[in-house]
């Protein structure tokens, strides 16, 4: 059994230790907001937080999650109480097809945690996710907006 926390709740799973955490989250735990796209950590659609670091869960064996605290898109906010990044995403109407957006949001949440006032260059260096609909332009605007909103709420 491998034990870890997901969005504050304790889980123990008996998946093969080499199973990518992505499939454990999606299929064993039932959290479908984290998406599969490239399977080789190129695109970031499966991005989650493991002990506050952004991890591409398609390439992260579940055995390394032992004892760790994991956050997925379902864990950062709710519809009633969205995270400031989710609020900014709604305000800027970022998503199109939406498939990659959980990954972008998880990357942006982490960026703003360590750097509350990122420059364009900081954003370029830390948001390496891919989006085929081309929401990049609005992602950048939403990150700047989230940074502003965060400052105002403090």
């Amino acid at each position, binding site marked *: 059994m491998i034990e870890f926390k997901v969005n504050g709740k304790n889980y123990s799973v008996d998946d093969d230790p080499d199973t990518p955490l992505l499939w454990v989250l999606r299929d064993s735990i*039932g959290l479908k907001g984290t998406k599969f796209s*490239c399977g080789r950590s190129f695109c970031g659609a499966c991005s989650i937080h493991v002990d506050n670091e952004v991890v591409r869960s398609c390439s992260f064996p579940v055995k390394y999650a032992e004892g760790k605290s994991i956050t997925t898109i379902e864990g950062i906010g709710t519809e009633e109480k969205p995270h400031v990044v989710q609020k900014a995403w709604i305000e800027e109407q970022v998503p199109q097809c*939406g498939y990659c957006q959980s990954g972008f949001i998880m990357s942006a949440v982490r960026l703003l945690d360590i750097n509350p006032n990122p420059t*364009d260059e900081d954003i370029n260096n830390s948001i390496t996710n891919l989006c*085929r609909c081309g929401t990049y332009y609005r992602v950048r605007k939403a990150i700047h907006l989230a940074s502003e909103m965060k400052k105002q709420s403090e």
Partner: protein
Amino acid sequence: MAEIRIDNVSRRSFIKTMGLATGGLMLQGSYVFAGDDKNPQQISLNAFIRITPDNKVTLIVHQAEMGQGAQTTLPAILADELGANWNAVIIENGLTDPAFKNPKFNLQFTGNAESIRTFHDILRNTAASAREMLKQVAANRWQVDSDSLRAENSYIVNQNGKKAPFGDFVEEAMKLEPPKEVTLKKPSEWKLTGNKSLPRVDVPAKVNGSAIFGIDVEIPKMLHAAIAMCPYFGGSIREIKENGVRQMSGFVALVRMPVVNPIFSNPPEHNKREGVAIVADTYWNARKCLDTLEISYDKGPNAEMDSESLHKIYEDTINGSTKWFESVKEGDAEAKIKDSKNTIKAQYYSAWQSHAPMEPMNATAHFKGDTIEVWAPTQGQEMAQIVLAKEFGIPVEKIIVNRTYLGGGFGRRLLADYIYQAVFLSKEVGLPVKVLWTREDDMQHDFYRPGTMQEFQASLNDEGLPEAIYTKLVSPSILQVVVNADYVFEGEGPSYPEGIKETPYHFENRLLHSYLLRIPPPSSVWRSTGFGTNVFALESFMDELAYKKREDPITFRKRYIADERSRGVLDAVAKASEWYTERKDGHFLGIALTHSFETFAAQVIEISIDDAGILDIHKITTAVDCGTVLDPGIASASIESGIVWGLTAALTSEINFKEGRTVESNFHDFKILGLPEFDIDIETVFVNSGAKIGGVAESGPIPVAPALCNAIFAASGKRYRTLPLKNHNIYTRYMSDYVV
């Protein structure tokens, strides 16, 4: 072994109320799958509108939501005309219905930028008809003239302000004959559409992970399949070494699939590819089992085919004694060019491209013997029905195709190849099966945007102006696999001459020769259709002609434009981009004009190239005349999206072939542009000419490549006639980090 979870994300959980956290219009709609609402009180006024006696209004979305905003703007059109309360409507994903067919094609599908331009009038008439029926019942009951009543916020209201909910009238209304004629609201009466930006219905679920895509579907007792398909065009599986796979955890079945896509093949022998599937209890167990197999392939008849040999076929066709199809003949271009002493000739080529939507192909199916139910992210609900009916001998009315959200479509999801696989496997194992492709499966087994080659030749008069234009177009088929054809197209392939057959210009002498190339790689429609590559060639050539005349590219184009709407977008983009303001900072401009999907667009790209040869894109300005823009927020997003799509194909991405198969397999070698590129200033202006509404979703990418290449010419004097530009060592500062 992992627990098999069944029904943990049921379809029911999809029914939910959504609220917006910040700003804008508050939206309290709900979103449900068709068939979820078993409420017997629901009364259908027509295929698009249902109302309950307790005044719940359900609007049915018959087009796929794949990012283009169909799920917002289509029901907004209905609600506007019906007089429904947008904040309380329920928005439901439609199944298939004769009323949902696109009348131009007699087929229900999503694509070709059709959703608004074809259905705007249909939806308005449908909703107006329902509104008039409700008003008629109220008029009878209140003994007033129906014309004195109005529909507002899901109530019928009389002149004195007396009002009663739609639900009070719906039971009687459904017994009425729909009116033969209805008066539609004037654009000035529209409250939800027409230059107003609504918050998208799908956004809240897409920022919190609750939106259900095809990959997220869970059906009770469902099994999972991972597949391997022969990667060689026309090849076959020689041998499968099982390596004890049947003893592995979760293994259910190993299934040979006869062919990947039995219906659509052009020519059939090239596309016939065998596959094998592992069905298991979980997806990851299926993948592990599949990876255990050792599969060897016979490469088949195309083992020598590669990008170079294919390219030579294009060149030989252009230069050889080809049996051309005469697509356009106006005046006598051939004689003029033959007799002229002053001619100009240029050849263009655009590379093969993959769709590569972020959600890999997948589908879930349950074969139940005499019925089939499918859950899939599909643009082609009815095409899927047709394919499945033909293959499994079950009538279309017994095939239910539920449509989820699509993690990108771009034309790829019109085809039913992956849906066929899910049904085939469900039939084999007797339980519902979800089949999920890997990114490698997706890229190696795409139906690609084919490479196309165009040659332009013009004769110039004494003033240096073109008097005749002769164009040759060589392209594989774009629509062969999309239409359910038992025949193979001959002569001119539909869609492939778009943008080059009918152009925004008028030339007295014009000849277009086209040739439908038959080569092994499977090709299909891709966002921008035939326009994408043809307009690159045409608009590059227009720039070459303008330069030859030493004339401003906009002034030159205006000599030949055939429509005032072209002038409108050229003037608008010139103003917004400050085209006529001299740049002193090493910035240069390029322009392109397009008329596609009944929309006119002109785009200016402003660039600089530094001493090291690095390309910087500073601003992209687009003027769009789609008649009337219904939702400028969504339409602007669509243009931004198109710019990324167009720039990616212009700069970096391409599909190559070697030894009879596709080279690229994932995003490490099929390079798509990332976020760093897009600190570009993007400005989009809408010219509301009031003409018939045109499509926007596919218009965005089309001018990008020629506008960029024209700007590069202005900056460097170098004319690039083949795409992508990375093959000419043109890089942005970010691309140089990651383009091999």
